[in-house]
């Protein structure tokens, strides 16, 4: 493990969406636009925040994102991370045998 790993140098701002959140890290984003093409909801647009090469980084529309993860998969720079937060698990339903 290198020193950089523990320090978490690429701070991103998580965007809260339904069932999870999406984090864009402008310090990694080179503005190639591949994520926009792969988004099935077309919910990624250009941001006012500049990326590492001085090109615009991307912004996720929190109302339309479905957390499919296509943007995370195609991003060559790992500048976008999709986190799915599962609902808290309820206990298992009682078995029919327990009712007797």
């Amino acid at each position, binding site marked *: *493990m*290198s*020193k*950089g*790993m*523990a320090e*978490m*140098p*690429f701070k*991103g701002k998580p965007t809260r969406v339904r069932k999870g959140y999406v*984090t864009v*890290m402008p*310090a*990694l984003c*080179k*503005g*190639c*636009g*591949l994520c*926009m*093409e*792969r988004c099935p909801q077309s919910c990624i647009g250009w941001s006012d925040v500049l990326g*590492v*090469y001085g*090109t615009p980084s991307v912004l996720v529309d929190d109302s339309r994102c479905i957390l499919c993860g296509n943007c*995370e*998969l*195609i*991003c*060559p*720079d*790992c*500048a*976008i*991370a*999709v986190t799915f937060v599962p609902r808290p698990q309820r206990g298992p339903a009682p078995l029919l045998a327990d009712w007797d």
Partner: protein
Amino acid sequence: MSATAPGAMPASWRVDTKPHKFCPGCGHGIILKMLGRAVDELGIGDRTVFGCDIGCSLLAWDFFNLDTVQAHHGRVTPVLVGLKRAESRLLTVAYMGDGGGYAIGAQHLVSAAGRNERISVILVNNTQYGMTGGQMAPTTLPGQRTETTPFGRDVAETGRPMQGPEMVASLTNEHAYVARGTVTKPRQLKVMIRRALENQMLGRGFSFVEVLSFCPTNWRTSAKETIAFVDEKMAEVFHTGEIKVPGKSGVGEDE
């Protein structure tokens, strides 16, 4: 996913060298991400040696938390063959472009495949020489415009694009794993890279994965046109899928 690596980065990536040196939208990042995830899943980061060739692929020299060696142009295959023969415990991944594998290094690729050396080769095919500015390569598509073919590649004069995995499949014996993936299907690509590494871990034989990749800088394409070029134009000439799987007979394509 590791808790320490930021975001979606594989744990085997070296974080202090990121953002990496590749152009915006380059396919190398996607391939190396899938290689990193395959290495993480197999848990072989402590005994994997990553070898890169000359060309754009050499920009990956400080990419991983793995032992890395960088060889002369086209010579990464024999360097890693030597390493593997000297220390068979190691897992060697040769990473090269189409220039390093099919042009200057074709002799080494052919010889290593013919001898069924127990190494894994990942070859990135972006239809031209990326680092020197987009000249014609053996894999340039018929009619494709490059710096040295301004009126499109003339098939009568310069031949058809080279079918690398088919060539390797015909050279190797039944213990080899040969496949062609594409960066537009990263999950399938990860499975292919993983199988190539597993084939080496089992000591069966030569593993070869060609990957169809993006080069928006030299193709001069937008993101939309880049994906369309790989999925439509390149897919017509280069058919993706597993060409040779150990233990399976016959040649199959995906889906």
